[in-house]
């Protein structure tokens, strides 16, 4: 068995850009695969000129230029090169597209778009999120590879709202799917995907890094915290409304929001209008070390998202021993087990959220401690990087 795994299988991961250093999940996945003897190549649509210090090869899609003319010339050149050097894969891709009813011009366009993939020899072609597989549904088969697709949340729940038929073609293909939660698995099954082709691999965190040795302290304020992009799907406006209710009922607290994003103005105005300017601190984006420090100084972690695949930040907060209150958005109810490792509240209900926060604050020290301990144990036992590596290895081998 060990011998067989040592055979170098090539996995091509398709992403839109090279993941940042902070994307532990991704780096860990690649590291794990390499350690198990896989060769990993990363394909990205956008490759800037930064010198990426990576242990794996990165191949960027050709930028055909902005003008129509340059696009036509460069695309045409790529098309001719692809057909000359990789005639079999190119022809097969063309034929498969034709079989799918793709128009002639689109078939040619797809050949140009996918030229950089069609010249590869891979065992697996894995799309990092659903939308990346659009117009590339036939690439894996054309190059004789197996296709895998990861869904992360946004791409499964939001992209189809903007592009209603975006996965019609993909879901008819032979592919193996990776999702972050059982809830997402259910959603995929509703698209008629066979359960046996779907693997749930939850995100994982560095449980050695996210540890808190300090005992909970008695403070002047209750320290509440959220780590999230400032995006509507994170439900921060509802969170602020709940906090306004708590302020009204006389609770002394401070709320720290770590993260940046397009809804900053909206949220700062909400905090201002709700009279929370003195209670809410928008910290902006912080490094993992700083996040850890902030978490270690907090009591309650709130993740009241509207849409959420799974959420690493909640895992990190649990590992740090915070009392976590989350919404029931998609994967969150699997991330935190209600009344066992934290609390799950129906989304978009600030009144209920406020009540829950009050309830949690009122719990006895012993009750709080037992929830904390269960959460820490569960994250350490079930969401470690090692387990994730193992699961990804199995994903490609079983």
């Amino acid at each position, binding site marked *: 068995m060990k011998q067989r795994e040592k055979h170098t299988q090539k996995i091509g991961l398709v992403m839109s850009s090279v993941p940042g250093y902070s994307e532990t999940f991704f780096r860990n996945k690649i590291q794990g695969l390499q350690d198990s003897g896989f060769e990993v190549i990363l394909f990205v649509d956008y490759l800037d000129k930064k010198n990426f210090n990576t242990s794996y090869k990165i191949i960027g899609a050709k930028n055909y230029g902005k003008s129509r003319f340059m696009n036509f010339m460069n695309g045409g050149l790529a098309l001719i090169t692809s057909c000359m050097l990789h005639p079999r894969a190119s022809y097969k891709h063309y034929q498969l597209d034709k079989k799918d009813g793709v128009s002639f011009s689109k078939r040619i366009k797809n050949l140009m778009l996918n030229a950089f993939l069609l010249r590869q020899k891979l065992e697996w072609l894995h799309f990092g999120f659903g939308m990346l597989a659009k117009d590339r549904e036939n690439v894996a088969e054309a190059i004789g590879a197996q296709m895998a697709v990861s869904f992360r949340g946004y791409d499964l729940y939001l992209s189809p709202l903007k592009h209603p038929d975006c996965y019609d073609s993909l879901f008819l293909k032979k592919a193996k799917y990776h999702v972050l939660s059982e809830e997402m698995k259910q959603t995929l099954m509703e698209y008629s995907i066979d359960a046996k082709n779907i693997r749930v691999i939850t995100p994982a965190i560095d449980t050695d890094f996210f540890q808190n040795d300090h005992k909970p302290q008695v403070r002047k304020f209750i320290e509440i915290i959220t780590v999230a992009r400032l995006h509507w*799907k994170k439900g921060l406006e509802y969170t602020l409304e709940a906090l306004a209710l708590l302020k009204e009922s006389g609770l002394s607290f401070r709320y720290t929001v770590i993260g940046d994003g397009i809804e900053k*103005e909206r949220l700062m*105005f*909400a905090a201002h209008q*709700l009279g929370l300017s003195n209670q809410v601190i928008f910290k902006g984006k912080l490094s993992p070390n700083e996040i850890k420090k902030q978490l270690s100084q907090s009591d309650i972690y709130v993740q009241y998202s*509207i*849409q959420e695949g799974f959420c690493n930040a909640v895992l990190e907060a649990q590992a740090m021993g915070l009392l976590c209150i989350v919404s029931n958005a998609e994967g969150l109810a699997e991330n935190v087990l209600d009344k066992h490792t934290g609390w799950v509240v129906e989304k978009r209900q600030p009144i209920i959220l406020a009540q829950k926060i009050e309830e949690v604050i009122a719990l006895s020290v012993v009750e709080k401690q037992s929830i904390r301990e269960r959460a820490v144990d569960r994250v350490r036992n079930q969401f470690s990087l090692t387990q994730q590596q193992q699961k990804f290895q199995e994903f490609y081998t079983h």
Partner: protein
Amino acid sequence: MSRPLKIAIYSGEIPSTTFIERLVTGIANSGAEVVLFGVLHRKPLYDSRVKIIAYKHMRLSKLFHLVRFSILLKLFKAQKKKRLDAYLKTRDSLNLYSKVKYYPVLWHQPDVFHLQWAKGLDDWMWVQDFGMKLVLSLRGAHINYSPVADTALAEMYNKNFPKVDGFHAVSNAMIMEAQKYNALANRIQVVYSGLDLNTLTEIDARMPYDKAILKIISVGRPHWIKGYTYALDACRLLKDVDINFEYTIIGGAESIEYQYQVHDLGLDNEVRLLGPHEFDVVQHMIQESDLLLLPSVKEGIANVVLEAMALGTLVLSTDCGGMNEVITDAVNGFLVPVRDAEAIADAIVRIRKLSPEEQLLIKKNAQDTIKQQHNVEGMVSGMMTLYNEVVGVR
């Protein structure tokens, strides 16, 4: 004063928004000379007293504009040009873009430079050094929320507001907002927006509760300030109590946030998210609706509410900004607190229960409010008073 006042109404775009266009026409009709500067998108039909000094969004047009006014200034106002150039240099903005924008204004030197959008204020403070009076309109976003998150903008307001010669506030509530940034109260004049009331029709006695489906409508860009998420949450509450309704958001089509919420709350059959429509079509759709809902978290005074009141459609609005200067709850419309889906849903349930007579009375009261408080004549005379005050004519 022997000659008529020369007033620049500046929004940077020609034509501008419906309300600014109405102001341009109104001021010109009152006898003043109006000058419009900026980018010309389409040439509107104006009175001869409106002078357009604009360029098209093309390099050649800008170049012609620049050369023309550079020569004119060099020949006839060389000192002033030199002074402006020196000022621009101190701001590090002595570039072609600034010259194209500023030279025509310096050449024409209107008595009043009326800036429509506060965010651009810092770019126009110089006009005062050349004898022009600077008037600033205090409208919606620029005062209401942008400076809350943007501290640099707030600082710019703090620095410049005390120097502005006169402010036009779209509501009394706006006075309070502007004072937070050091605007002097005695320089602020509230001038309500005016509607073209010539085409007003008699209000009919349409009765929502007679129909099987209550038709609710909102109009506005898909921006968080419009508070549509609260309206959609309210829709779910209405559905929970089995009220048959149809809610249309004109302008909400492109938002994934609303699409997701509609889908998530199971409102696919009740809610329609449409793209933007022509003014006439929007008016017709408002007229065809039983209730116009304004769920905004903040507003100056929402023009769409004024339009709906004039058209005889009931209005339910959040009590934000200046909305309570137009609407008195249960008299000529309905008000609910901001950020409160339950209050919106409750109010809709209440409105549905009104008798036909009660509804008709509210609609008539609403139309009367618009006639009295939001006519073009009132807007023009209010604005002329402000202009005359800043130039020292009483």
